[in-house]
């Protein structure tokens, strides 16, 4: 059973979302996602200042067997990227909810993205048999 912190929001594409302020989010991949991908060896994160579109790919995480897109949950601008992952991609496996964060996003005004609560994400994982 994977860890699903109660204070975060989630997407069906297995990103977690932490609200830092009313206009600022932090995202990463869930414990379930890192376990499914296996040992991660490379992370490609967007440049600070890049424009993001809700539902569009914004980063790539690569394991020895697959490369997967990470989707932005909102429209916005990249405020920061976790540059430490370049030399230590294994942080994504070890601490997916803390040191393994991917990017921080300045959210464009007026959005209420349809995110899942921890309980809803747990139910989604259970019902999709994952």
């Amino acid at each position, binding site marked *: 059973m994977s860890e699903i912190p109660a204070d975060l929001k989630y997407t069906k594409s297995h990103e977690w979302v932490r609200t830092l302020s009313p206009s600022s989010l932090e995202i990463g991949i869930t414990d379930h996602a890192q376990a499914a991908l296996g040992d991660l060896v490379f992370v490609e994160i967007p440049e600070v200042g890049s424009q993001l579109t809700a539902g569009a790919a914004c980063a790539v995480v*690569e*394991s020895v067997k697959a*490369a997967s*897109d990470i989707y932005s949950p909102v429209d916005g601008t990249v405020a920061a990227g976790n540059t430490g992952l370049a030399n230590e991609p294994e942080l994504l496996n070890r601490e997916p909810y803390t040191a393994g964060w991917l990017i921080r996003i300045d959210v464009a005004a007026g959005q209420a993205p349809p995110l899942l609560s921890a309980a809803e994400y747990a139910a989604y994982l259970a019902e999709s048999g994952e």
Partner: protein
Amino acid sequence: MPFIPHTPADVAAMLDVIGAPSIDDLFDEIPASLKVPALARVPPALSEMEIARLMSERAADDGRPLSFLGAGAYEHHIPAPVWALATRGEFYSAYTPYQAEASQGTLQVIYEYQSMMCALTGMEVSNASLYDGASALAEACLTAVRANRHSRSRRVLIPRTVNPTYVEVVRTIAGNQDIDLEMVDFDPQQGRTLTASLQRYAGQDFTALVVQQPNFFGCLEEVDELTDWARENNVFVIAVVNPISLALLKAPGQWGRVSGGKQGVDIVCGEGQPLGVPLSSGGPYFGFMTTRMQHVRQMPGRIVGRTLDAEGRPGFTLTLQAREQHIRRSKATSNICTNQGLTVTAATIYMSLLGASGLERVAAMSVQRTNELVAALTAVPGVRVVFSAPRFHEAVLALDRPVAPVLAALARRGILGGLDLSERYAELGHALLVNATETKTDADIGRFAAALADVQSVAAGARGAQMSRRAAPLTGGQ
């Protein structure tokens, strides 16, 4: 003996199962206008004996001309062991094998090849090869678009001194992916691209600048200045190089000045044919590409790495496959995932046999022979050198009359006299691109010069007669 595994009965049975009336119906979605009903000079099915005879006759039609034609493919001496080894059963395939790691010898050859190409170009990583030099440049442009994070324009600066057939291939491949090419003119006296001519693009968003060294005219570009200009403007540099020339010229990894701890170009690519691959009427050849480690995930194609197995023994393995199409599907870095394994094997053996000093001698002798050729040909009345820039092993000559009939007359004398540039570079007038490598002797060069003098004098007589009849202007183009 038929080598087709399906009998007409097999085919009929299979068509019956899927409910298609004929094999042609399976290709229904291809518009009729794109289908070619018959190929000129390609006969219907022949027996093995008939086809062997036809092909020998066709091959004999080529003759064995004395070739001074370069323009991207060059005749070099290939030591006999190169193809004796490359065609051994263990190597004799164009592909990286399935279950690649089961073929450690094949992977080791590719690993050695990659190491040699990195050393030759002064870069950090090489792929296992691409189809040819032209498609390698197209892939290099796509790589630059993915890797240059300072640029969003998808615009590439290409000097007109880059091989024009390469530019056509780039247009075909990259042009359909929203990449715009901006052609940069050359200096008509020097025959190379002036950094000053790039100044009008300063401050604009360009993804990459292509620099061919030596350029299509055989002239040496001022690569340091061009590279520095590109760096200052956040433009990637894609070097297109002749690998033989790198035995004498500065490696692209060292072009330009050191700034911010970095030096040199971003991507190097080119045609590998000069390294032990025969001209073979145009192919198969192979393309190469090397780059910096920071761009390795944006580089297309296979990469072989060295590693340790579970018991700690060294071995070779395909690496970074997660970005390739059999795993990433439509999001793969590139749809190229094969390579020219057989010609690469030959090139690896060629480079191993010659070593750095051997390659240097090949390059130096080619330069010397070309200088001798230029001296001999420009002694013929009406022939002069067009450009003033220093050259490698190729030169543009101007004739005092249209080139095509001269080349045709030389061909009748068994000489391939070079490439007529007048169609692609009309402003150069009656321009002829010639090359000589270490394979040409004093006698060969003398024979070409004598034949050219002969052709020029005969043609001059005929032309003179025609001129007086028609009173056509002397300087008129074709």
